[in-house]
């Protein structure tokens, strides 16, 4: 049915705007710091770059309280099932950001022990390259994610549950 609604009805469009506006301005990240990228992620949360300006100040320690999964660092094959389970524990709506070359594609480790990109197990929304990305690079990626959320249509799921991702 969602295919027939090319342009959503006025009420739903306004509702979309309201929902996406509130979603994008209160992204609570779940920082899974797996390697050196975690240091840059922590620096982003500190005073100089201050991720709180975008409504992301609360780095939750529990995946159940988070909306945004920042995979920061090398995902080894041993860690991969745990990362997948953490993502499954997050409540919808949820987003994934792969931060750093290791999370994007295995980076400098094309080996048997390292997962070649976290997008093999998770639906990644934004890939942030860099080794590691600077705090400003991470903020740039997060702003990109906010733009993408603003363009999404959460009410589509009412008519078509399959429209989710």
């Amino acid at each position: 049915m969602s295919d027939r609604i090319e342009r959503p009805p006025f009420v739903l469009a306004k509702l979309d705007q309201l929902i996406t506006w509130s979603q994008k301005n209160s992204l609570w990240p779940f920082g899974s710091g797996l390697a050196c990228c975690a240091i840059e992620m922590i620096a982003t949360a500190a005073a100089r770059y201050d991720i709180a300006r975008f409504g992301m100040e609360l780095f939750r320690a529990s995946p159940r309280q988070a909306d945004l999964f920042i995979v920061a660092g090398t995902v080894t094959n041993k860690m991969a099932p745990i990362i997948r389970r953490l993502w499954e524990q997050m409540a919808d709506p949820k987003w994934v950001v792969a931060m750093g070359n290791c999370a994007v594609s295995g980076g400098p480790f094309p080996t048997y022990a390292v997962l070649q990109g976290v997008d093999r197990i998770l639906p990644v929304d934004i890939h942030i390259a860099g080794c590691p990305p600077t705090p400003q690079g991470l903020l740039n990626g997060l702003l990109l994610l906010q733009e993408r959320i603003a363009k999404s249509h959460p009410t589509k799921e009412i008519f078509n549950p399959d429209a989710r991702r």
Partner: protein
Amino acid sequence: MNKVSRFLKTFFLVDILRGLAVTMRFYFGRKITIQYPEEVQPSPERFKGILRLYKDENGKPLCIACKACRRACGTNCFDIEGVRDPGTRTMRPVKYDWKLDRCTFCGLCVEACPTTPKSIRFSEEFRMATADKSRLHFHLEDMYLKGKDLQKFFQGGSKT
């Protein structure tokens, strides 16, 4: 005396006020937050941003396809092929593939580059976010992109 002073200290919350004084000093002090999208932190002198190929003043590519960067690279980011230009008898790259998602920004390729000025250099670009992972693989034409064109490439602009 000791007991009385301790009582007064706890009663008037001296330690808490002392701690709050530090907070207030920073509150009215110099602001250190960089308002990122509006204002960008000036990059340090030897900042390692994304690798870019450069051209000389006449718009000719500096690269001579010697593959020194490829040999120096620790993670096999490069795939280069060169062809000798029949007119000028110099080698020019016809294929210059670079995988950003494998790069560790170590700078060995920049050190190995024999041309003067160096044809491959670190730029000051730190914005390397994309929604499409395949955008992290660069070809010859994309290696010259900078600034807004580079961002357009990352966000799904023209792909060569």
